[in-house]
């Protein structure tokens, strides 16, 4: 279902908040690319450039008490959820000041304070976790929502079908947010799924499903607000967010699986400049707002890199800490 | 049991504890521990064996009266049903 008239920001404060959130993600991811090429960030790195509108639009509709389960491409969700860019960058550098003490790295960002239950390097492995969190809320009569972000590639995993069925069978408050960026690593959707209309898949579990333009942050927010409202205290809902990643699947794959022209075409619908144009047209943003926020975001990420650079490596003596729970009574 | 039967029982018990003891050469009136290599453990085991064979109760206080073979036999005889003492 697509909204009739193109949406506009409610007010200036709303426009500034959405723009700042998307720009911070974009600059953070570009800083990561730069630090990766300098060898400061190692291992795997999956960047969110191009899909910012999805994380920002959906997370804008959550309360502080809701929960998020994400994937290995979770920097954007972490920043949108409120995790500070300095411990997040320190985590990329593997420093003990990182949000997971430097142990998780890019694919395993965790934050208990904001109920951010992590990245996950196993495709679809987060779905059962989200189902469980929602089950706990249902059994303890808490009006909380658990949002589970995953790529369309996860839909080929058994855990996707098992989780969707379980959530629908037990009417659990889970929002399944599928970021359909058309490519599961190097495999186009049409070459991995017999049914490429993802909402039809959800329907087979008697689960309401909507498809949304994932490049339009206002459209995402509008759909997400209605979805979260339906899920809170109710049953699960499936949201397909059609989006596109401008950079490689992970650092520097040669991207032979897609044409340059396709990338350029999608770049014309870059969620940030398109939003700025619309916000300026509606009068919510002034001419120099974008440039100012751009500067603030860039400066924030320089500080984040400095913080990570100044961080320390965890002492080897702590290697075995937290294998088991160290706290007191729980 | 007659005196001879009692004497035989005691000697058999002694043979278990001290196989090298030659009953013929044992002198009845001399304390056993002066004739044989018996420590307190052996002596206790001897009294236990005697008690089991003759069912005569031997309180610890009476140990002193049982140093020689004759004394043991006399002690047992006195405590036979219908015996003296």
């Amino acid at each position: 279902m697509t909204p009739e008239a193109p949406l506009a920001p409610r007010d200036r404060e709303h426009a500034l908040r959405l723009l700042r959130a998307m720009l911070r993600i974009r600059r953070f991811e570009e800083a990561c690319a730069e630090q990766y090429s300098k060898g400061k960030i190692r291992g795997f790195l999956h960047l969110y450039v191009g899909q910012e509108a999805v994380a920002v639009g959906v997370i804008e509709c959550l309360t502080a008490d809701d929960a998020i389960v994400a994937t290995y491409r979770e920097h954007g969700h972490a920043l949108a959820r409120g995790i500070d860019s300095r411990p997040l960058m320190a985590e990329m550098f593997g420093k003990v000041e990182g949000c997971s003490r430097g142990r998780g790295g890019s694919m395993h960002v965790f934050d208990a304070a904001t109920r951010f239950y992590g990245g996950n390097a196993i495709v679809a492995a987060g779905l059962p976790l989200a189902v469980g969190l929602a089950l706990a809320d249902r059994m303890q009569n808490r009006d909380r929502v658990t949002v589970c972000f995953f790529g369309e590639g996860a839909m080929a995993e058994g855990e996707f079908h098992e989780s969707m069925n379980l959530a629908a069978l037990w009417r659990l408050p889970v929002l399944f947010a599928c970021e359909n960026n058309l490519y599961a690593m190097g495999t186009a959707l049409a070459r991995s799924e017999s049914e490429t209309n993802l909402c039809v898949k959800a329907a087979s579990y008697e689960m309401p499903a909507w498809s949304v333009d994932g490049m339009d942050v206002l459209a995402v927010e509008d759909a997400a607000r209605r979805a979260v409202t339906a899920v809170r205290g109710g049953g699960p809902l499936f949201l397909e967010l059609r989006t596109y990643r401008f950079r490689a699947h992970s650092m520097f794959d040669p991207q032979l699986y897609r044409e340059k022209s396709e990338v350029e075409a999608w770049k014309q619908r870059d969620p940030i400049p398109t939003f700025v144009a619309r916000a300026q047209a509606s009068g919510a943003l002034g001419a120099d707002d974008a440039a100012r926020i751009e500067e603030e975001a860039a400066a924030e990420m320089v500080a984040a890199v400095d913080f990570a650079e100044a961080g320390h490596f965890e002492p080897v003596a702590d290697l075995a800490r937290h294998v088991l729970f160290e706290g007191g009574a729980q | 049991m007659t005196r001879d039967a009692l004497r035989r029982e005691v000697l058999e018990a002694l043979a278990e504890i001290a196989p090298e003891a030659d009953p013929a050469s044992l002198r009845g009136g001399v304390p056993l521990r002066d004739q044989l290599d018996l420590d307190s453990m052996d002596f206790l085991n001897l009294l236990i064996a005697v008690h089991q064979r003759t069912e005569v109760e031997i309180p610890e206080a009476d140990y002193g009266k049982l140093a020689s073979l004759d004394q043991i036999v006399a002690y047992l005889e006195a405590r036979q049903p219908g015996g003296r003492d």
Partner: protein
Amino acid sequence: MTGERIKQSFREAFRQSLREALVRDERVFLMGEDVGRYGGSYAVSHGFLEEFGPDRIRDTPLSESAFVGAGIGAALGGMRPIVELMTVNFSLLAMDQILNGAATLSHMSGGQFHVPLVIRMATGAGRQLAAQHSHSLEGWYAHIPGIKVVAPATLEDARGMLHTALEDPNPVLIFEHARLYPVEGEVAADAGPVDLERAALRRAGRDVSLIAYGGTLDRALEAAESLAGQGIEAEVLDLRVLRPLDEAAILASVARTHRVVIVDEGWKSGSLSAEIAARIAEHALGELDAPIRRVCSAEVPIPYPKHLEDAALPQAARIAEAARELVRGG
């Protein structure tokens, strides 16, 4: 302790401990295939659906990965789930959730999250269920840092381990040997929680140590009896806890008898018995008056016909023979 003792089967003992757990703490709930309406494939949760209702006795679809993942999520969400995986054979479908989820979350999140989850599963062979239903994989799980693994082999442990496991802030796996369910014995009427750290000496003996756990304890005791008839006094040590191993008890036993036979229903290569033998060789070499012997399952898929299955499994006769060889220097 009233000191009164009752006659009880392992099935009844497990049922009683489960029922007491559900009564004691309303956060506790049971989830698994056929645990509700059917009363449990081994009838351990018979009658629970009527007593506790469908919310706390949850039949699940055949989705091991999803409902084990959901168990992890619910534990994170404040519940104390008991997930029943019908048998260790089906746990293979949930291995990723157990290893990459439950076991790793605390360490990888820098200690922010811990998973107070209990997973129960039947294990072992001996009932002619053939290869796919007769595995003994405790050793695989005992290999994983971040979880505890226990194997009740006596009625006291069948009554008491679950209670302690539920109070543990870390994931605990309880392996119930399938052959034990119908076995009856005497146990204190008010048997309560037991420790999950120490091994237990089940039989004293001077000449050789038989180390066993779970379904092999009765075999070891049987072997010890037949050895006694031949003037060989065998000590029998019940491991009880497979991770962390009670190394001190193992080494003390070897120091007493200087000869050891380790009994393990797993396959010999890379088994738990291999780990125990390595620790003895590392820390008690000077105490060994004979080589370490292991009696395990033959390295074959467990065959269906009884005579072949019996030949494959570690039996009392083979244990006694190994012990006699060590003592007599045959």
